[in-house]
């Protein structure tokens, strides 16, 4: 029983960051229909910004997360403005390939700047785990979960309660209709990409101290983000959040009880299975996918 609880705790922590990562991609994918291969690179960027702030500039951990978010937002907006504006986004293939190009450039720039050796990010938390019965969680992971949960809640409020959120939801549902009622779709695009990238960056900044920062960590993150989006369904932000937690649970329990070696494979298997049986995702309304 204790082991199950431990897995639940681990899954909640991972799930919260996965949810951030997944929502970030969902809004980009959902609104702009861009298969954003660079999403994982924003995640990596966030991790390295956090590392740079903490280890090199001796900034405190909390502010570094903020900086990571800001940098993510900036780079996201930049990418959208420079590369995607001029392309008719209906050319899915070319847009996808451009994003792959951006991914290659970002990943190798990171390799050039930081080198290939994994970096550990020092945190101000003690390493003594907090234990309740035989379930334990390190203070770092607890912090990560809290921040992610807060951010998810803030995002929810922003989407549901503000005019800006309304504009996003409108564009999400139907671009042309949104344009008709006066939403500046071009600006929404930029802001969406920026926001989605910022969320990826924060997810990276949060998870990096739990594990390590390497230039190649984005590859896996990108693919997991896609798994989450597909699990949750494109038309649904709430679905993406649930998808994040669901993927984390599948990974935790799969690794714990089926096979620890195939931990990262579960995400991909999930994609394939969901595509086979319910291509529109588990939580979304019906949508034509084929």
């Amino acid at each position, binding site marked *: 029983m204790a082991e199950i609880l431990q897995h639940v705790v681990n899954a909640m922590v991972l799930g919260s960051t996965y949810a951030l990562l997944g929502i970030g991609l969902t809004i980009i994918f959902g609104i702009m229909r861009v298969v954003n291969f660079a999403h994982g690179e924003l995640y990596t960027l966030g991790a390295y910004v956090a590392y740079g702030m903490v280890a090199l500039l001796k900034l405190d951990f909390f502010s570094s997360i903020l900086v990571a978010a800001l940098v993510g937002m900036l780079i996201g907006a930049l990418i959208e403005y420079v590369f995607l504006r001029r392309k008719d986004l209906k050319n899915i293939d070319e847009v*996808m390939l451009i994003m792959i190009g951006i991914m*290659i450039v970002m990943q190798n720039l990171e390799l050039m700047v930081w080198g290939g050796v994994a970096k550990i990010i020092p945190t101000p938390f003690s390493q003594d785990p907090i234990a309740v019965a035989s379930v334990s969680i390190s203070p770092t992971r607890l912090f990560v979960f809290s921040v992610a949960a807060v951010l998810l809640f803030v995002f929810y409020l922003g989407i549901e309660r503000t005019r800006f959120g309304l504009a996003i939801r409108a564009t999400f549902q139907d671009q042309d209709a949104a344009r008709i009622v006066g939403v500046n779709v071009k600006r929404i695009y930029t802001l969406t990409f920026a926001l989605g990238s910022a969320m990826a960056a924060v997810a990276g900044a949060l998870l990096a101290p739990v594990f390590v920062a390497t230039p190649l960590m984005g590859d896996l993150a990108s*693919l997991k983000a896609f798994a989450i989006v*597909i699990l949750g369904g494109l038309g649904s932000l709430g679905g993406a959040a649930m998808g994040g937690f669901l993927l984390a649970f599948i990974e935790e329990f799969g690794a714990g009880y089926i096979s620890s070696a195939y931990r990262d*494979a579960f995400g991909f298997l999930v994609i394939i299975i969901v595509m086979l049986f319910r291509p529109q995702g588990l939580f979304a309304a019906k949508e034509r*996918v084929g």
Partner: protein
Amino acid sequence: MNWKLFAIFVLVLGLLPFLWPDPYFLSVMGSAGIMIIAAISLNLLLGYTGQLSLGHAAFFGIGAYTSALMSLGFDVDIGFGITWQVDAKPVWLAFATAIVVTGFFGWLVGKLAFKVRGAYFVVITISFAQVMRMISLNWTDLTEGPMGMISIPPFSLWIPGEGLMNLTSKAAIYWLVLTVGVLAYLLIAMLVSSRQGRAMIALRENETLATSVGIPVTYFLALATIISAAIAGAAGGLYAHTVRIIDPDVFLFIYTVTMVIMVVAGGKGTLGGPVIGGLIFGLMPEMLRGTVQPEVQWVIYGITMIVILLFLPRGLVPAFYDFIAWIRSPGAIPERESRRVLATEVKS
């Protein structure tokens, strides 16, 4: 397709080991050649049939592992106390098996993936490659996992007067790759100018319209995937028996990306595109080696790909043909120029 140009090209390539016998150069050309074959196969799916399949490294890897396993022989326990044992087979047989098996996986992936379109299709194909990588990494009984499969036997050829010779010299490998490459190129060339090929192109242009005129879309998609996968499997098999060591990293996304860059930059949907793209991106790493770090090289490739996609979206080969056409008709004044001329005439 221009047969004369093709024949000259092949002749020059064939004579290359005599003109420039440095073994390192030949080994670089050989590796580039293998990637070109993979790019040619991807071009069928990506360029001619219009399906952005980004898991192509999976077929390459399946071909490599199948050929290696068949030529080394294996012995695995697949659960329920059943062991599957296969003795080592001659390399040619292993190679042929690899092509067939990979074609089969192509069909399988096709069936799976073609239920969906667009971005979903892309994600499924990528996931397939990743799952294959995980399997080859963890099913160590079969694949040796991260330790990789080593001492894979080379191809052997019966040469009159010499008997059975192992194809291990760099020149021999080069010619082998060249032969398979030419065969693959010819196969694709004949396919795209046939009825089947035209059906695939119709699919790429407008799937709904194609269905409406009675083209069985799924049939042609399946055909394209099977052939594409089979050729990629051949490339993988070549790789296994020339490099003679493979490990799960053959399934990495970066190899798919390399093939994609070659096809896209060269010109998707053209016969020469993947070859030119493959030569450029296969040889650039060697030319830049020593002067420029690999990370910087990749930044250059990424930027090149982005620039080509933004400004020459059809690729280098079509852009080159456009340029030739433009040179050939110097009498055609560009629109801006003609407006300027008219404007000055009106003023005066």
